[in-house]
């Protein structure tokens, strides 16, 4: 009996591993290819191997250096992201709901959206100094757009019949906005937040590479100057993992809150 149980456990473990491999096989393939090519080239300055980068990552973790930079970068990126959400969601709602807000903001948004925000970094440093504020401002300037535009689209898409139903049930205009329009737009808002999260990280590293004494962006630049390619890769890998984790957090939250949207059939 016991061997049967053990065989069953082993089988489950095997199946679990198999499922994991199936789910992320593209990533596994990518890492294996990277490792093989790096070993063929055999020049860590040009392309360090995956295992080599993991080693460096381990060293940086043990020395505590990586943790400090990660904390600083995460603070900046999350502040920028949070402010874009706090400004973007209400602005997108107002633009989608009130004609006057739409008329006022729509041309401003259209005109300023394509302006490259990385190009604004020197200006923000000029206006806000070299500290965290200018970096958060740059992130805000870029990340707020997807939040505004997707919130706006979600609000605009609210079916008239839902709004009418609520009004006929006695909802005030404010109740219609918060109890009908906002929940209807929520899945779209989450899409905007996911885009904003990615943009926040990208802009953060751009900002940290221009003017900073700390952060993962600074670490990349510093390591490049030292011709320390493995550390560059270790920092890049950290960024990728952080971005992945935060994206999953948003995704899971949206799945929790918007099950009706994801499971709908019609």
């Amino acid at each position, binding site marked *: 009996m016991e061997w049967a149980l053990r065989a069953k456990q082993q089988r489950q473990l095997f199946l679990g591993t198999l499922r994991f491999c199936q789910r992320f096989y593209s990533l596994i393939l990518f890492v294996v290819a990277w490792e093989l090519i790096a070993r063929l080239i055999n020049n860590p300055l040009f392309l360090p191997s995956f295992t080599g980068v993991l080693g460096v990552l381990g060293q940086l973790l043990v020395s505590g250096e990586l943790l400090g930079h990660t904390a600083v970068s995460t603070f900046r990126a999350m502040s920028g992201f949070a402010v874009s959400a706090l400004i973007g969601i209400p602005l997108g709602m107002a633009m989608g709901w009130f004609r006057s807000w739409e008329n006022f903001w729509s041309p401003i948004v259209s005109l300023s959206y394509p302006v490259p925000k990385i190009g604004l970094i020197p200006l923000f440093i000029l206006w806000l100094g070299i500290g965290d504020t200018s970096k958060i401002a740059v992130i805000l300037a870029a990340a707020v757009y997807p939040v505004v535009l997707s919130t706006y689209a979600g609000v605009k898409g609210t079916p008239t019949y839902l709004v*009418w139903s609520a009004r*006929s*049930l006695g909802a005030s205009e404010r109740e219609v906005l918060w109890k009908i329009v906002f929940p209807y737009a929520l899945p779209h808002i989450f899409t905007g937040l996911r885009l904003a999260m990615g943009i926040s990280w990208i802009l953060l590293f751009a900002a940290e590479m221009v003017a900073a004494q700390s952060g993962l962006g600074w670490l990349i630049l510093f390591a490049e100057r030292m011709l320390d390619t493995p550390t560059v890769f270790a920092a890049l890998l950290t960024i990728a993992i952080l971005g992945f984790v935060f994206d999953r957090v948003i995704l899971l939250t949206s799945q929790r809150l918007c*099950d*009706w949207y994801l*499971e709908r059939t019609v």
Partner: protein
Amino acid sequence: MSAEAAPIITCQGIGKRFQTGDHSVLALLDVNLEVRQGEFVVLLGPSGCGKSTLLYIMAGHLAPSTGDLRMHGEPITGPSPARGIVFQDFALFPWLTVRENIAFGLGLRWARAHAAERDARVDALVRMVGLQGFAAAKPHRLSGGMRQRVAIARTLATDPEVVLMDEPFGALDAQTRDGMQRELMRIAAETRKTTVFVTHSIPEAALLADRVVVLTARPGRIKEIVPIDLPRMRWNWRQEFSGRFLEIIGHLEELLGGEIQKSEAGEMEHGVGATS
């Protein structure tokens, strides 16, 4: 039935013109109608005749271009919980459960102190529409018929004086539709609500109505008001092969037939699809 009953809603000379850019469509023209206490009025007409428009005007969601519209003598200027509405596509709030949907209107006006009373009322409505096992489900898990029951319960929850229904069974399959008509008759008998019901189905009109208001093709005008002088609870029209019932259906067919032809001819002429 009760020709002497007091009118609740009065429409006088109601007209509606829709303007989009340079293009304008006259949807309704000079509609005069009284909806009386406790009666079941069906608005019947070809598609695109403006019968739904008339219903939305009564609800207060659309303003009439001309005419005078009153409820108990007071002008109707906007939507009100006194006039509940049920739409063809159910219009349930998809992020709320069946219970929460039904409780929506009550939640807006009743303070937390009334929570127990509110719960009891929602429970009663869930039972009334036979959805006891689905109270915690969200609408996307329900069939079309179940969704429409939730919509009806949600509208009845706030105890409106008048229930307006816009082709509520139009999106359902024939079998479900039969069942829902029967259920609506039962609910109407139980609650004695004044109801205005839009449809383009003649049997449905004859089955449910105390009076059928037949509208012409666009622009919608009242062609004839046909009283159905049969006792209510005509459970299923197939069981009602009484001569009188067939006579009424024949009369409605005759009235509507010409209008449908006109409506189709109009579409060919203008090359536009009709909207109801």
